[in-house]
């Protein structure tokens, strides 16, 4: 498969993956582009991989996790936005109403990535572990911690709604 063929067929999937892990459309497109650029630069190696998409997906996930480790990274920029240069996010209105989507924003980047790979990409724990370079037991522990945190956040939201 040639690069252009791959990018045309799977590029949008990468943007969607970027959006589910980052919750930000612009960042999702940046992540997809970074992953595709890197894949393009070593396309012969990517082609030889058993599953080229798995390879590119790994680049995207690792780029996102690296990004979130930077001191300057902010999950939800809220101040000093240059409104002239801000592109409206058409996805925001659709998902803002979802309390589970909002609860996901409270998780760590790694916890959210594990949940996305498990419940959106339908990957097993061994494949997720391979993607993230960690042990399957760490994947299970991270997922379990993330689910517990989500349950707790949702319960507290329900209590708040009942009290209000």
């Amino acid at each position, binding site marked *: 498969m040639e*690069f252009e063929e791959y990018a045309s067929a799977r590029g949008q999937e990468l943007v969607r993956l970027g959006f589910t892990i980052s919750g930000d459309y612009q960042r999702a497109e940046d992540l997809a582009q970074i992953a595709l650029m*890197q894949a393009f630069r070593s396309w012969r190696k990517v082609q030889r991989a058993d599953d080229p998409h798995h390879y590119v997906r790994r680049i995207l996930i690792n780029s996102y996790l*690296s990004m979130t480790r930077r001191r300057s990274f902010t999950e939800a920029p809220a101040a000093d936005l240059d409104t002239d240069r801000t592109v409206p996010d058409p996805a925001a209105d659709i*998902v803002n109403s979802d309390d589970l989507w909002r609860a996901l924003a409270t998780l760590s980047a790694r916890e959210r990535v594990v949940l996305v790979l498990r419940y959106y990409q339908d990957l097993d724990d061994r494949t997720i572990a391979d993607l993230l370079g960690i042990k399957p037991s760490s994947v299970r522990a991270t997922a379990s911690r993330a689910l517990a945190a989500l349950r707790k956040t949702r319960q507290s939201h329900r209590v708040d709604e009942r009290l209000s």
Partner: protein
Amino acid sequence: MSKTELETVQELEEGLRATFERAAASVPPAADLAGRATTGAHNAQRRTWLTSGAAAAAVAVIAAVGFSLHGSSESTPQPAAGNPTTPAVSNATAPSATAQAVTGSWRPVELDGFKALKTARPEDPIITFNADGTWVGSDGCNSLSGTYSIGQRGEFTSKSNGQRLVGCENVPHTAVLQASQRIVSDQKELTFFAGDGREVARYARAR
């Protein structure tokens, strides 16, 4: 796990699947991802080749001038980086860097306080010192440039031009250059030192 807890977990998992599907479906189509990726990669590669090629050409010119004048003057003064027409004198025993020794492209090997050198980036985070006293490079995401000079005993000063700040694990070349007051090179490795003698960074020659 009790039956109620199990049901809660299953309900949560179903909710997550639905939420992710809904979020993914809401993403509008991105235009020409393949084209943008190939253009970006080509631009990054072209910058690397141009800077490497220019540096190699400059080294060749300086070396030719240096060798041609070497026989006629045994005590030719050491050139500053900003004056490439002054003939260079090879001095293998002196540890301090000369303009000739630093000219070319370098990749970071160790930067004091920076641990993410091996992180994947859109561009190679190399830095290139040109013989005309200018430097160019990339922090992995943004193009960098500025000027520099090297004294006879490796005294180093530099200035940086403005740069864009696209986010990635930006390699802090500019901070290294600003913090450095002395530079040492053995042609293969370049080491920067702060004013107090502390090693700030080490670079190896990029191929």
